[in-house]
């Protein structure tokens, strides 16, 4: 029997997810423009795998398939996986990662709304730990045409040593480390000088900064549509920039600038699309600030001192873990119980 309220706002999970997907489009467009259409193949692969995995798990769990496949949440996960992975990883890696995200990280925890971890980021971490070499091969902008990308995705042998390298983030960190070694040719060079190579572009890696700008635009549109609030992206960017800026100010020869940190790697994607995932993120306003700020600081720490190239994924998972604690301790006072 239905009780009041008898009227409802025409809102649905599907609509929310659809708008998130739309917001990703500018970033994807920039991605394709600079790095080639290989990413579209990856997106298609991941989406297909996500739908298949979700459908299989829903069937096993006896849930209505049409309803849950239609909510598009699996597609969002799939897109995020494709966008955070290098665009030339072999197809089986994308598919395995997506299946792990959907089957293990999402459905085994109870499906939509129940997963404590962001599925896409969990998949990223699983994969970078399992296949660090494959997950560290990023082509520079315009380096590979579509057919060689396809060959890398679907082909067997990967003799790509000459044409792929690490991300600007990783390369810079390596260079910075080398610069501290008195034996190295780079000894004594400052970050700004180290970044003078063709791969670095203006801010955060050639092409990479434009992709980041695309995601930023999409994120701002989500803000305007009130799908997300400013708290998480704002606190994340601020914390990342502040922690990067602090060490940069103290030792500019040892650390990259805050602008570089914001514009490279998964910072923008993380700020607007990953950390804002409501299921695995904090929900209270103060909690959101704390959650995102923690993720920002951790991202910087992992980027600067960790063993893996980017820190957004690990930072997200670590903060996901803290969410129950954060939420529990940041409940706002309710009506009439406020202290003025």
């Amino acid at each position: 029997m239905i009780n009041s309220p008898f009227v409802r706002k025409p809102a649905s999970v599907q609509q929310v997810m659809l708008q998130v997907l739309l917001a990703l489009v500018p970033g994807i467009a920039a991605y394709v423009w600079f790095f080639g259409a290989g990413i579209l193949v990856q997106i298609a692969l991941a989406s297909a795998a996500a739908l298949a995995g979700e459908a299989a798990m829903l069937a096993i769990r006896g849930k209505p398939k049409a309803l849950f496949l239609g909510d598009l949440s699996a597609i969002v996960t799939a897109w995020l996986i494709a966008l955070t992975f290098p665009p030339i990883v072999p197809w089986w890696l994308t598919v395995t990662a997506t299946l792990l995200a959907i089957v293990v990280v999402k459905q085994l925890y109870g499906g939509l709304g129940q997963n404590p971890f962001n599925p896409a980021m969990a998949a990223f971490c699983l994969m970078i730990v399992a296949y660090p070499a494959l997950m560290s091969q990023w082509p520079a902008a315009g380096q590979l045409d579509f057919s060689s990308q396809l060959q890398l995705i679907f082909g067997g042998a990967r003799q790509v040593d000459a044409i792929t390298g690490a991300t600007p983030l990783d390369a810079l960190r390596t260079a910075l480390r080398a610069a501290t070694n008195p034996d190295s040719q780079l000894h004594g060079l400052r970050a700004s000088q180290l970044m003078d190579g063709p791969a670095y572009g203006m801010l955060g890696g050639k092409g990479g900064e434009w992709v980041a700008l695309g995601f930023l635009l999409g994120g701002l549109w989500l803000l305007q549509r009130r799908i997300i609030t400013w708290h998480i992206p704002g606190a994340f960017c601020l914390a990342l920039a502040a922690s990067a800026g602090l060490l940069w100010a103290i030792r500019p020869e040892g650390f990259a600038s805050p602008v570089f940190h914001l514009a490279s790697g998964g910072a923008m994607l993380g700020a607007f699309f990953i950390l804002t995932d409501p299921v695995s993120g904090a929900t209270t306003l103060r909690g959101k600030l704390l959650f995102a700020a923690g993720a920002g600081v951790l991202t910087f720490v992992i980027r600067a001192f960790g063993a893996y190239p980017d820190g957004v994924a690990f930072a997200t998972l670590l903060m996901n873990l803290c969410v129950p604690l954060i939420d529990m301790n940041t409940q706002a006072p309710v009506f009439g119980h406020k202290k003025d």
Partner: protein
Amino acid sequence: MSQSTILGLSTRTAGAMMAFTAAFTALMAFTYEATHAQIAASANEEKMKLITEVLAANAYDNSLLDDYVQLGPTRELGLDHGGRVYRARKAGAPVGLLLEATAPDGYSGDIDLIVAILPDGTVNGVRVVSHRETPGLGDYIDPKKDKDKKSPWIGQFSGLNPATLPLDAWKVKKDGGQINSHAGATISPRAVTNAVARAARYAAANRDRLFGAATGASL
């Protein structure tokens, strides 16, 4: 139950505790005595296993582990706290040096190596003793973790000689040398390569001094 005074109970528990402790400590002591010699033998055997990988066991006939020179801090070998050089001899003639060396610039810190160098300066073999490189990325410097079991990466050093090979070639290909490395993971091999090159040069420069020193002498 009559002696449930505090003093009585304490005496009783203390006595029991003492008896049990004596008995079980004795058991442990006995086992220790019984296994003592075997443990020392096994430990030596383990150490020799790695050495055998870089220098064949039949190449020398001296007691290798007892014939060593103690080095102080040595920049050339990356040894900040010193290390040992073992000397292999056959019928008293020098057949090889086993140098402990450290590559300080690995992706995640020090990489400890053992390098076998023949008297003519040729590198006979290199093994990684310990490292903390990223699993799956840089850890193929250790042949146990190398996917390519037939010709592990570290085998490339066998047979190189600083006397015949120009120093420029003792580098990974990315730096313009001739040593191969895996895509996306060049830091660890670069560190090892550089360390081996330094060790080879050091050995060539100090060969006579190292072979000539008395056993156990500190240099």
